[in-house]
């Protein structure tokens, strides 16, 4: 066959389903979490050097950018954990019915936001 035949459109025309949306988010949050380990390192380092150095971290985390960062961080981790639990069930062979995947997908999405809010408010109380 000629090599210059066009390729039919794919991601441009294909509808998003809940399952595909959760799948790509799982990947993206996986990469983000990996990069955020660096952020966690700074956090731990600032703790080990005592309260003075921790002040810098505190100033940052209380700024608008910092808040966005921390909330994003929490969401990304929670999303990954919930989605991973869904994958565990799949690995054991459960939850493949279309209805179930839709429900668990929605649970992962909504759950990640709800738990983020809860955890952020709770952490605010603790700190």
């Amino acid at each position, binding site marked *: *066959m*000629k090599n*210059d*035949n*066009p*390729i*039919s*459109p*794919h*991601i*441009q*025309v*294909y*509808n998003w*389903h809940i*399952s*595909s949306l959760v*799948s790509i988010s799982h*990947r993206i949050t996986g990469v983000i979490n990996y990069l955020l380990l660096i952020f966690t390192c700074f956090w731990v380092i600032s703790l080990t050097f005592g309260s003075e150095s921790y002040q810098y971290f505190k100033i940052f985390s209380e700024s608008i950018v910092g808040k966005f960062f921390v909330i994003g961080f929490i969401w990304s981790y929670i999303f990954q954990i919930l989605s991973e639990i869904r*994958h565990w069930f*799949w*690995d*054991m*062979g459960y939850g*493949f*019915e*279309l209805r179930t*995947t839709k429900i668990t997908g929605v649970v992962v999405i909504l759950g990640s936001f709800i738990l983020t809010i809860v955890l952020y408010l709770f952490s605010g109380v603790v700190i």
Partner: protein
Amino acid sequence: MVQISLPKNSKIQKGKYFKDKTGSKNIRKVNIYRWDPSTSENPRIDTYEVDMDNCPSKVLDILNKIKNEIDPTIAYRRSCAHGVCGSCAMNMDGKNGLACTKSHAEIKGEINIYPLPHLKVLKDLIGDLSTLYKQYDSIKPWLKNSKNLGDAENLQSKEDRAKLDGLYECIMCACCSTSCPSYWWNGDKYLGPAVLLQAYRWIIDSRDEDRKERLKKVADELKLYRCHTIMNCTNACPKGLNPAKAIASIKKMLATS
């Protein structure tokens, strides 16, 4: 390789507009992907105004109507028109399915029809499935049995036969494989849901003696484990089968054997 955007020669242009000539008041706009191999032009989207008062219920009926009454140059595969042969698999309203079983009343607004995604287009709505057929061939889709039974039947218990339910119904229409992003990006190496469901159909058959060899053959980072349970395959299957579950069953067998 992940390539989100289409190559230059695949970019879609605006095509012709076929205005309704019947004077019908019940008109629907149908946008169809067109590409003519005899010209060097890019693919285009032609729009047809179709009189829905005189059109049966399925998307394939619309295509037949257009071909018979408006534009005979349009090319698409079709045969049985009853959801059995799998010829008229295409992308309708952003989802793969069989044009002969997809009701156009389910689609809101304009009807968009494309070939199955991420295939080399041969003409209009016809994609090239030869890679998929080669992959199907590679899993040796036939019973391997050395018993010499003469004229006797090769019997199977009811329970063993039941294991093939949800697998043997597959008509190889390729709706699932071409809905899978993993298959889009790695279609040359990853076997894809259709072929893996077929592979599982032979692995799980109690009469087959080649299970170990079959499992060994699919147990490959690219052939099997490119499945990330995106579930587009199961969402797309016009026969209501579950390729994602079949793939997971293969993975589970490999993990526990």
